[in-house]
């Protein structure tokens, strides 16, 4: 199965330990919410492989849903990974999107690499009724259209 995904890299002006805490401390996860005004609701974190973290995301008037992830790996302060998704929102936890966060010391700063892996066949776009196929991947690769 061909995997799709993307990677985002950031240099964060803080040591790894602080960045790891920001990802896993329920008191600190507010940054994961959107910039829209949020209703204060408790953020829950069950910090173990197989454990879930959840927060309520407000996306519009009267429109909110629960999102977060289910942890796969926890390796402080270097790495964590989780299945990312929402209940009744986008994307669905059932789609199996896997987020991996890798933290590397860069002096007093941290290089954070975030990779999101999207399984082939996942209807990531509402219009993709048939999902992705190797043929399309080959087409894109042939014309160097894949990033």
């Amino acid at each position, binding site marked *: 199965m061909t995997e*799709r995904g993307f990677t985002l890299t950031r240099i964060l002006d*803080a040591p790894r330990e*602080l960045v790891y805490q*920001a990802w896993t401390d329920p008191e600190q996860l507010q*940054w994961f919410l959107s910039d829209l005004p949020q209703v204060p609701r408790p953020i829950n974190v069950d910090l173990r492989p197989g454990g879930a973290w959840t927060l309520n995301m407000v996306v519009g008037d009267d429109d909110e849903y629960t999102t977060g992830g289910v942890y796969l790996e926890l390796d402080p302060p270097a790495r964590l990974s989780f299945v990312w998704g929402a209940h009744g929102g986008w994307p669905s936890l059932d789609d199996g999107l896997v987020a991996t966060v890798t933290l590397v010391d860069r002096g007093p700063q941290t290089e954070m690499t975030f990779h999101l892996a999207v399984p082939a066949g996942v209807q990531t776009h*509402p219009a993709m009724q048939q999902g992705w196929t190797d043929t399309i991947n080959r087409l894109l690769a042939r014309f160097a259209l*894949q990033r």
Partner: protein
Amino acid sequence: MNDALTTTFAALADPTRRAMLARLSEGEATVTELAEPFTISLPAISRHLKVLESAGLITRSRTAQWRPCRIDTTRLAEIDSWMAPYREFFGERFDRLDKHLQTMKEQQ
């Protein structure tokens, strides 16, 4: 939702059409050449080609009775844009993470 993207995906949703595009990625071909690997009728082949053409995935020359079809990669390039919402989502979150970390450091 991006209408062009929806049309592109609809065109790609059929395995016969995907196979035709794969053939055209190797070079232009006539309708007869494209029909060759399939057991379906020529009118059916024609319908598939119309869908691909409407979606902007192929262009067809009309200068001769045998009309060579050629792949057009413009729409294919846009397919990668399905990832854009995810990238934006996390890009925005990491801006907030950045600000949050500054606040945490100031408090220490």
